[in-house]
């Protein structure tokens, strides 16, 4: 062990740089560029507020990601619980003293950025679980006593986020948490049981839903029910994507978004805008880049030595995958509209920060893939 630890420590700077995962890096840069241009388009072809701050964030967070990548993977292992506790603290802080916008109290004003702790929680939960299961024996994973802590770890932030209220993010946190649990080797029956419990408690949950959330679910099943009201977003988004055709309407020529038919085009509906302007071809290319990214992370996960890094990579790849598919399915009218950003593409500092932190953990896993954590 000592030998191996020293091996890693002995890595020279150039060795580290050389063992960077360039495929992943290229994917991130590609998506970064695409997102910058898309944001430029949402501003009507001008460098205005949204595009400017998005590009600044991209540069800042990307640089930060590169620097963090050089941290030994042991650092992430060591700070896994702490990270979770800090984010949970921020989450509670946001619930108590947070900034309220559009009827939801989910931001903390840090002056240079409005931090949304719930986004960070997406990463924190994976880190926590990765550390939690790293040392655990395969037999004891399914011990009842060992189920209680992960359950509490997952449910507390979910409830906090859901009460903000932010249904979308809480669902995404839950999904990424469940993925880690599944990968960690939790018995399938627990998932089946909780799924059953979920369905049984469904009516009870629905009674707790805000009216606008109920409306969204109803609208999903029949968007034409109220074309100018709740169904408006889905219909307009479908029109935008559908009218894009094979090659799209051309950069800066998406009439749907340019003429403000698209709601929330900087954030959740950024893919709609991209798809309208660049058509089927562009969308498939973007999707491919994302796919390469996801499978590359999985590939990194498969070569790392430590279980912590492996579990993190697998889970993070799956989480990213879930964010992408949920967002795309939503704008394509396959899922109800829940607030879920498209990683890197969507406007939003916290989401990008969380994603970039995730990437740097993955990068660090790659650089220190031989690193064993005791």
């Amino acid at each position, binding site marked *: 062990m000592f030998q191996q630890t020293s091996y890693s420590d002995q890595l020279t700077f150039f060795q580290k740089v050389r063992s960077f995962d360039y495929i992943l890096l290229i994917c991130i840069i590609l998506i970064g560029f695409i997102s910058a241009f898309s944001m430029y388009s949402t501003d009507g072809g001008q460098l205005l507020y949204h595009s400017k701050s998005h590009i600044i964030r991209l540069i800042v967070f990307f640089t930060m990601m590169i620097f963090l990548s050089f941290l030994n993977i042991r650092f992430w292992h060591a700070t896994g619980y702490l990270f979770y506790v800090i984010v949970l603290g921020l989450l509670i802080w946001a619930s108590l003293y947070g900034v309220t916008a559009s009827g939801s109290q989910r931001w903390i004003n840090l002056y240079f950025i409005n931090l949304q702790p719930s986004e960070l929680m997406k990463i924190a939960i994976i880190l926590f679980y990765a550390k939690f299961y790293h040392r655990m024996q395969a037999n004891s994973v399914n011990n009842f006593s060992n189920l209680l802590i992960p359950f509490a770890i997952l449910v507390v932030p979910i409830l906090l986020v859901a009460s903000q209220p932010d249904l979308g993010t809480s669902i995404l946190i839950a999904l990424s948490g469940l993925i880690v649990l599944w990968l960690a080797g939790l018995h399938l029956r627990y998932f089946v049981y909780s799924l059953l419990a979920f369905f049984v408690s469904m009516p009870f949950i629905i009674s707790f839903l805000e009216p606008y959330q109920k409306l969204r679910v109803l609208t999903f099943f029949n968007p034409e029910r109220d074309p100018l009201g709740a169904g408006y977003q889905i219909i307009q988004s479908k029109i935008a994507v559908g009218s*894009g055709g094979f090659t799209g309407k051309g950069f800066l020529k998406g009439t749907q978004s340019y*003429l403000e*038919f698209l709601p929330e085009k900087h954030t959740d509906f950024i893919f709609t805008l991209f798809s309208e302007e660049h058509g089927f071809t562009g969308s498939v290319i973007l999707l491919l880049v994302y796919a390469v990214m996801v*499978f590359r992370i999985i590939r990194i996960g498969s070569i790392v030595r430590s279980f912590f890094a492996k579990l993190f990579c697998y889970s993070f790849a799956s989480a990213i995958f879930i964010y992408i598919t949920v967002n795309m399915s939503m704008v394509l009218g396959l899922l109800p509209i829940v607030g879920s950003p498209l990683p890197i593409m969507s406007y939003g500092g916290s989401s990008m920060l969380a994603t970039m932190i995730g990437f740097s953990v993955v990068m660090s896993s790659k650089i220190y893939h031989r690193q064993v954590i005791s």
Partner: protein
Amino acid sequence: MFEGGDSTFKKLNTINRRMFIISAAKAVVFTGIVARLFSLQINENKKYLTLSDKNRLREWRLPPVRGQFFDYFGNVIAGNLKVYQLHVVPEQVENFKYLMLRLKDILELNDKQFSKIIKKKNSQKPWETLIISENLNWDQFSKINFYLHELVGAKPVLSVARSYPFKKNFTHVLGYVAQASENDLILNETIKKNHVPGLRVGKIGLEKTFENDLLGTNGIQRYEVNAYGKRINQLDHKEGEKGKNIRLTLDTEVQKLSNELLAEKSGSISVMDIYTGEIIAMHSSPSFDPNLFLYGISTKDWKEIREDPLKPLINKTVSGLYSPGSTIKPLVALSALENDVISPNQKVYCNGKMEMYGHTYHCWKEKGHGTMNLRNAIKQSCDIYFYETARKLGVDRLNLTAFKFGLGNTVLNGILANEKKGLVPSTKWKKENLGVGWVLGETLITGIGQGYIQTTPLQLCLMTAQLANGGFKIYPRITVDKNQESLANIKYKMAQNAYKGKEKKYSSPIRKVEELLNIGNKKYLPLYRNSENVKFVLESMYASTNEVMGTSYGSRIDDPKYRFAGKTGTAQVKKITEKARELDLHISQIPYEERDHALYIAYGPYKNPRYAVSIIVEHGGSGSTTAAPIAKKLFKLIIDRHELREKIQNQDLIKI
């Protein structure tokens, strides 16, 4: 490695196995998303492209420019006037309430007008133009422009509106336009197709009849709009087609004189070309100013027009029904001659009244005319002579002649909506409609144009025209027809038809073949059996105006250029009682409603007649004192204008 062993192996095994399952699932989901993209962007691309265009494009339809009316000489009689309007598009106004209050102040709107505008605003879409004022006067317009920088969203606009420069002169012919009603939209597809808020459409008269020609089509401005309907930029501008211009046969000068001559009176004047059938003037009095209706007539003005006892809303020329009185006598005489019932030399002694069927029938001249022949009877309008003639003729034969000459039927074929047919009685008609048999006494009074018989002034004019042209059928019209036959052509056809009529007596097989070949030439047919009879009647009318003792001798013109021939008529409105007959009241002593209608029909110039005139003055007293003098003034102008009209007709000078 020290963390080896079973447990680690098992853990890795599980995680790799499960990751594989998840990866496979990922591939499936990604494929699903690609499939969805394919279905939206490739399969249903057309559908969504259409929807997207529908989203972003919006058309604004501009009001069509209405066609104009011209008189025969090319003067505009219903035109388009430039007006200043004030438009507001509510969605482009930041503070609508403030703007409205400012405008109320500047335009000095009263509360009623103000609330009307607010009501209108609430009933339309926010991006639709709200017309605050349709006709700003210069004062308001300059004031608006002065304050314009404070009135964000208010747009002074130059627009076109109907105007009738000759005001009340053409009202009954042209009618008027007003804002299209729900009903207009339901009944007329063309209006519905071209409708924009504030569109004016014809409500009555020729404006209504020719609506589809006059209306024109919308101009279209196509804009790209954003999700809030705000115009982003104009993509396309299509000029609308202007409505067709329509040239009428009317002569503004004659029309104006008609107005003056009937000023303060209730009645009608019609003037017609006896060959082409062109109506030179057509006036119903009293009239009103159609411009009042353009922006919604005020209650006070409307009440004044509606409650006027002289009934200005009725076009008396085509809708007024009058007993023709003695103006029917030339026709009765013609009918009797044509049917060989009497000869011109037939003598009847008139002593002022006659007893028949247990009734006493009076002549208008109490003392009687003495012994009369037909010419004198027409000239002096002897009633007794015509009682006798009618008795011999019978109402049914008179009925046929009257129909031939244009009574009992519409003259303009429905060009004016409420044109009346009038009534020429027959025994059959009475049996069918009143269920009672014809009484012989009724024949007598029909012979002097009283009783059931009812005619419109325009019918009398047509009758006169068809007598004056020698007894040929003509085709009255009020719009200028490009294919109108020339006068020479018409005269030639008439002569040809007259000749053929004569030839018939000696018809040969060749003649019959010729006739068959000539089937198309059915126009301008003679309405008589013997042209001498028509000539005789016309000559008698000449005597009536131009010979001493003639009923309209006082209104004659000696100058042969203007000399005309006519027949007076005095139609009783109320049966004269024996008592009243004894009193022999002066007209001023009889209440207005019971006074006789004064009528006059005439043609001129006597040599080579060209125009026919009919005049009716309601409750005007006798035809010779009230109606005939009007004809005298009228003929002077008509003949004076003749040369100019002829010139235009021959050289086709007017292009509209």
